[in-house]
């Protein structure tokens, strides 16, 4: 067994952990970051490829929140976490939503002004920008359809830096905050799974880990720390807390954005090297319409979801792109650690209202794509067939049932909510876990509810705020 001492241990290196590590290391604290997954050169693997799925995704790809219907989800598991595999869309937390959460959960120092201050800091570090020049064809589809229907749409900024030729590079944590942390003296330990937190009564004193060496052997590693930040994301943060003995209001209240998809075929080819950056905001925040990665593999999977014959469309896959409708859900899920299992059980119970909203979103998405010139639509409803005209969309209202809906999500939040309202939260306004000492959560788990947009910006601004609070108080 090996052991290691540090002042601050940060568990997880995604949007929350990387910001925490960089902020604390640059303030002169001794920081160690442990990451369960590998440290991969961000330029070594093509985005959204099979290799990326194998190397950077937890479970090598698919996982599911069980329910009726189940909701498939994906998470990153590498240095940089899910920022390495997402689309890089950046959206500040809407002020009215922050204000609503501040009141409901009694969150200190959570006014729009405070959050904007931290968002500004993050944006200046990450290069948040819009695509130079005209948007790619797959993104223009959304704008064109929305314009024809009289709906609002916007081009979202992304955490991308562009060179003089207009080539974009996603500013993932492995490219930005992790190097900053390392430059300031932080140590990063990849391939290191935290089995449980070490504690003396309510005080956390470190973590017991299982590290995989470069030679492939595994060894036990105990890390002693004065302070521990758990930043493993909305599934694995509550799972680790439960494994370590904290259960009260931990893991319940999981939120996600249930999402339905449509593979849309067009008369002419689309681009497939980028993710559409336009979004329909006409129905936000309850419903958002946008586009997904559409490499050949993703197109094939999306085409097959409808159970219709798809070989002809797949043969012309360059003409097909994948779009989605995502809702803010009324319902909530749960993360539950199972004895002797490394993966927690995740459940999610969709309400009838959620299902109805998803059906509406799917029909809206179909209308948009037809208005933009699509000739064939393959929805993620089993046994649904292909829609070619407006009249065909009527069947989607009744078709999206619990047994036929094929849902997924990539946004998971709210499993250890923050706030001073102890009955509703697992941690206080700054991420300190109720009933524990020297233990903080600082990731998507803290976000009190689903934001209705990509949560990366909210995660980062909350993480920066909490890290500064730590520096001022600990």
């Amino acid at each position, binding site marked *: 067994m090996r052991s290691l001492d540090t002042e601050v241990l940060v568990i997880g290196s995604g949007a929350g952990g990387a910001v925490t590590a960089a902020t604390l290391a640059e303030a002169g604290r001794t920081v160690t970051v442990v990451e369960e997954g590998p440290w991969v050169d961000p330029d070594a693997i093509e985005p959204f490829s099979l290799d990326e799925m194998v190397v950077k995704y937890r479970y090598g790809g698919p996982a599911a929140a069980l329910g*009726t219907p189940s909701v498939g989800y994906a998470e990153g598991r590498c240095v940089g976490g899910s920022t390495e595999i997402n689309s890089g869309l950046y959206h500040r937390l809407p002020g009215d939503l922050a204000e609503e959460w501040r009141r409901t959960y009694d969150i200190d120092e959570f006014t729009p002004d405070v959050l904007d201050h931290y968002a500004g800091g993050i944006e200046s570090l990450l290069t948040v920008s819009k695509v130079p020049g005209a948007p790619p064809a797959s993104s223009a589809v959304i704008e064109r359809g929305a314009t024809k229907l009289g709906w609002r749409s916007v081009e979202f900024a992304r955490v991308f830096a562009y060179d003089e030729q207009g080539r974009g590079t996603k500013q993932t944590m492995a490219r930005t905050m992790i190097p900053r942390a390392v430059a300031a003296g932080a140590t990063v330990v990849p391939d290191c799974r935290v089995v449980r937190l070490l504690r003396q009564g309510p005080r956390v004193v470190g973590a017991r880990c299982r590290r995989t060496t470069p030679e492939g052997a595994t060894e036990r590693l105990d890390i002693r720390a004065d302070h521990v930040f758990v930043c493993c994301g909305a599934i694995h943060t509550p799972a680790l807390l439960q494994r370590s003995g904290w259960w009260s209001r931990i893991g319940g209240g999981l939120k996600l954005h249930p999402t339905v998809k449509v593979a849309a075929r067009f008369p002419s080819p689309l681009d497939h090297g980028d993710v559409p950056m336009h979004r329909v905001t006409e129905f936000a925040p309850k419903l958002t319409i946008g586009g997904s990665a559409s490499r*050949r593999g993703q197109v094939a999977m999306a085409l097959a979801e409808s159970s219709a014959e798809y070989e002809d469309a797949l043969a012309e896959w360059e003409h097909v792109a994948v779009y989605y409708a995502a809702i803010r859900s009324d319902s909530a899920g749960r993360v539950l650690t199972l004895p002797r299992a490394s*993966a927690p059980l995740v459940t999610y119970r969709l309400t009838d209202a959620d299902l109805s909203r998803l059906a509406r979103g799917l029909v809206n998405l179909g209308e948009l794509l037809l208005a933009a010139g699509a000739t064939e639509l393959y929805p993620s409803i089993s046994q649904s067939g292909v829609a070619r005209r407006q009249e065909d969309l009527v069947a989607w209202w009744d078709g999206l049932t619990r*047994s036929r809906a094929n849902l997924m999500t990539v946004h998971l939040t709210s499993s250890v909510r923050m706030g001073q309202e102890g009955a509703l939260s697992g941690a206080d306004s700054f991420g300190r876990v109720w009933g524990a000492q020297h233990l903080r959560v600082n990731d998507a788990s803290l976000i009190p509810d689903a934001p209705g947009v990509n949560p990366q910006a909210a995660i980062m601004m909350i993480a920066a705020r909490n890290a500064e609070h730590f520096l001022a108080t600990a």
Partner: protein
Amino acid sequence: MLGFEQRVVAGLVTTTDPERRAAVEAFVDGTLRSMPEHLRAGMAAESLLLGAWDRVRGRGRAGPVDLAALDGSRIDVVRQYVRLLRGLVLFAECELAPTT
């Protein structure tokens, strides 16, 4: 992969190139091994039941699986079972396809 899973995957793979078939099967096998334990256990149980049902129907332990029957099953988890395997096979086949 369990025997019935191998037969389903073999029925879903469309390429005739033995190397690509092997690569697709290896990808699916690796993904199933990496799944959360409870999901893998549920899937394995389903594979055993479906395999037993297939034998009862006289199809033996080898040979093609009736994918249309699984796709059209009235039982949700059976359809989801094929959906998952089909998704993995399709993704791997497309991503492993030679660049044209």
